[in-house]
């Protein structure tokens, strides 16, 4: 039998607002434990939450970027469960009236576009962090637990996809695309390692052609896109093997073990957990007026998908458009400006995604430290185009420009990389090569074009690479046919 995987992804995004979701404490990473806390985010008796308007605007932007409708009225609920790093022993979250619902995200996999439905995006608050002592991080054997509430109350957006994902690769691409969208909006620093964006996968399988869903398993603890793909792939195979050997998938939460490359059971869910959701009585319903929503919509930046489509309309291949779109904002601005100056889009994109990115990596330079103006890149491209420098010399020129030696032309001149295109200056070399290779000349005359390259090469050698190959090429053709 053949099996179809059915995957849904839940994403938690920590917003980088100045203050926490329901109090005035700063949102930041690092720092001494329990220094960014107050009565509200510590759950002290009597303290009350006050919602953060910027966080609400951030989730509205996320929802609009994902094609969701923003509810005119949205309600906070309490999700009740006991956990040591959850100060109130309930999390302020949302239940039946989330801020955003019914959106989608288009992803490109193997040259095809797949539309993944977004069920909802809702607002909630983060918990504190537990550190278990003397146990290799495992709670069961811990000698003690340290609690840090700096993260408690940081605004979190949970984005829940529909079960529209059909492979581990799609799961990864979905996650990457979603991260790119959120990054573009500038509402989170989306760092996987720091947990400011976190992915959980709900995985099930069903026989091909079957409509009903199988029992789903929640897989957690993936901290890179690669581990997400591996974990989902592993979980699909585990379930298929289990079912094919006569077993049954049980509804549970499984933990991805990156080193071992396997998932193992964390807790079995008996039915659905009873979080005893009820309306948060300390907060009034949020009202998102159509005017407010429109205002947020108008402020949305160009999203990755829109940008890739624009690049393709400028003549870039889908792959190149994707690579360029993923570049740092600073590099993309150079592209836009260079194209504006009339430089050919493909060449500009190639330079940026290839040589420039390579140079940044090699020199460990941050993109915002880059000494490359759009006019420089446009000039370099046009120098290559008109043959003023060879494409290999152009890489040296770029290196010089990036090292701060001046404009491309200045660098090319200073480093003596300008190609000789003056036919008078090349005359002697061409004559000498043709004279020294009568056999090749004969073959060329007989129509064997492949010796042309050899002859051009000889001239290039004789001129120490400074000749413009296209000029030399034309000169030889003229001589031989003439």
């Amino acid at each position, binding site marked *: 039998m053949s099996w179809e995987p059915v995957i849904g992804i839940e994403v938690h995004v920590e917003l980088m607002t100045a203050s926490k979701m329901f109090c005035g404490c700063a949102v930041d990473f690092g720092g001494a434990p329990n220094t960014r806390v107050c*009565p509200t985010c*510590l*759950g*002290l*008796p*009597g*303290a*009350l*939450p*006050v*919602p953060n308007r910027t966080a609400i605007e951030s989730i509205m932007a996320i929802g609009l970027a994902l094609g969701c409708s923003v509810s005119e009225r949205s309600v906070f609920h*309490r999700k*009740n469960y*006991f956990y*040591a790093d959850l*100060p*109130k*022993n*309930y999390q302020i979250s949302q239940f039946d009236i989330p801020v955003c619902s019914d959106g989608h995200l288009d992803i490109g996999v193997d040259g095809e576009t797949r539309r993944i439905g977004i069920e909802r995006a809702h607002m909630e608050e983060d918990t504190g962090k537990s550190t278990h002592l003397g146990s290799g991080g495992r*709670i069961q054997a811990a000698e003690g*637990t340290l*609690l840090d509430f700096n993260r408690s109350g940081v605004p979190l957006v949970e984005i829940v996809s529909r079960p529209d994902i059909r492979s581990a690769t799609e799961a990864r691409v979905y996650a990457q695309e979603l991260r790119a969208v959120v990054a573009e909006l500038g509402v989170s620093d989306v760092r996987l390692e720091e947990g400011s964006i976190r992915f959980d996968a709900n995985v099930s399988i069903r026989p091909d052609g079957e409509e009903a869903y199988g029992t789903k398993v929640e897989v957690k603890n993936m901290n890179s896109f690669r581990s997400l793909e591996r974990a989902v792939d592993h979980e699909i195979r585990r379930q298929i093997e289990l079912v094919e050997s006569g077993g049954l998938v049980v509804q549970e939460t499984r933990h991805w073990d990156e080193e071992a490359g396997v998932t193992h059971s964390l807790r079995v869910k008996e039915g*659905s957990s*009873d979080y*005893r*959701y*009820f309306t948060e*009585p*300390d*907060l*009034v319903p949020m009202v998102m007026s159509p005017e407010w929503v429109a205002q947020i919509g108008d402020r949305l930046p160009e999203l990755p998908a829109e940008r890739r489509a624009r690049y393709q309309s400028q003549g870039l291949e889908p792959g190149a458009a994707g690579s360029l779109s993923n570049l740092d904002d600073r590099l993309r601005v150079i592209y836009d400006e260079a194209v504006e100056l009339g430089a050919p889009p493909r060449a500009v994109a190639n330079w940026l995604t290839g040589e420039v990115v390579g140079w940044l990596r090699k020199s460990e330079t941050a993109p915002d430290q880059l000494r490359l103006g759009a006019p420089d890149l446009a000039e370099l491209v046009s120098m290559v185009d008109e043959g003023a420098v060879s494409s290999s010399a152009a890489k040296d020129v770029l290196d010089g420009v990036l090292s701060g030696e001046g404009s491309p032309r200045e660098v090319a001149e200073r480093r003596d990389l300008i190609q000789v295109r003056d036919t008078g200056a090349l005359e002697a070399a061409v004559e000498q090569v043709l004279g020294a290779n009568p056999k090749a000349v004969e073959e060329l005359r007989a129509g064997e074009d492949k010796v042309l390259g050899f002859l051009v090469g000889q001239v290039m050698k004789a001129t120490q690479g400074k000749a413009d190959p296209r000029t030399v090429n034309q000169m030889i053709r003229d001589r031989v046919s003439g």
Partner: protein
Amino acid sequence: MIASSVSEAGRLLRSGETTALALLEDALDTASRTEAQLHAFLTIDSDGAREMASQADADLADGIDRGPLHGIPVALKDNMCTRGVETTAASQMLAGYIPPYDATVVARLRSGGAVITGKTNLDEFAMGSSTENSAYGTTYNPWDLSRVPGGSSGGSAAAVAAGSSLLAYGSDTGGSIRQPAALCGVVGMKPTYGTVSRYGLIAFASSLDQIGPFARTVEDSALALSSIWGHDPLDSTSYPGPYPDPTAALDRGVDGLRVGVVTELSGEGFEPAVEAATADMVARLEKGGVEVSEVSLPTFDIALSAYYLIAPAEASSNLARFDGIRYGLRVDGSTTEELMARTRAEGFGPEVTRRILLGTYSLSAGYYDAFYGQAQRVRAAIQEDFARAYAEVDVLVSPTSPTVAFEAGARVADPLAMYLSDICNIPANMAGHPAISVPVGLDDAGLPIGFQVMAPALGEEVMYQVAAEVERLAAFSLSPPAHGAAS
């Protein structure tokens, strides 16, 4: 007593005939004479209070007048957080807990120059109607030391009745200010939901809780309310305004007002003396020019049941934070779960435990709709009933409590009988409306009887207007036997 009301004390202070320090020492004196019997206070902060009183005197001498409560001794129910002063909610769970911040009400009292004398006793986490559920011992009624003062704000009611504080504040979730006020013969008032900040009030049921004053006179009550209410950005449910003026109509009389007598708040379970006192006051009001009609609000019969689903549900969540992890009591265990479970088992008293269990149950999957969901629908129906009634009348009146103060211990073993103490009070909480209890007389045993005036949301002006008239007509004398020399 140097002064028998806040307004009188204010006049004496400003004319130089007395000082804040003298008013304070007078109150502390009374407390030292009565506390052994009453146990109205959990904490008396004499040193802190003397500092505040000295400051109040110094300010007045400098010409700084902070308003009607300047220099006035005030006691606070021990579920309002006071920075640096132990705040326990009368629970073992918070024994020794010292809040690092002031509740908004406390901050406003401080900036209004009030002298905070201490923290008064209550039923644990404000759950109860007799102050017998305190983990630190019962408070007794100054009118009869064998009887309860009502609850849950029994300490505040008893303190004002005994004169150990000129003014006190309590919280009212389902009658916890009005019922003890009635049983102790003082004026107790619950404001419109959202007009007094809940920031720093240890939550019982967030959608119902509201802080309000206990006073010796209706005018004092109005002054005490205007000193603490107003929009608070720290409480998202706070009403932005505009606010009515509670004192505006105190002297206006009641001629031409329409008063509705609630049919459902009479009959079975109501003591004859209470019914008689109520009917007598209604008759006097009618003579005074009001148009009296009988109004039926059928949902009042089911309000109590709905309340006992909603309030415990919210409480079960609000009290989840008391887990032994960050503050308060901790009873160790071999796992975190065990630590939490042991702490909660030991830290909460039986009534709190009962309500947490009740609330957890009513919110549980499969039961939510039949219990919590249904109760919310009843709540909406109560609001509709009120709206219909207020289309016909300006205020509604009833007894505050079906009975006078009952014997200590009488209802401890019968939670339902205890819950019925608040039957007249709960509808106003469910609707978020203001209501006040004014003492109107004594029964044959010399125990006070309270008269309740309810008004629509933000109807504090007309509510106080009627309450002032009730006070004039009743000419009640606040002189409990345990009040001793000051009576």
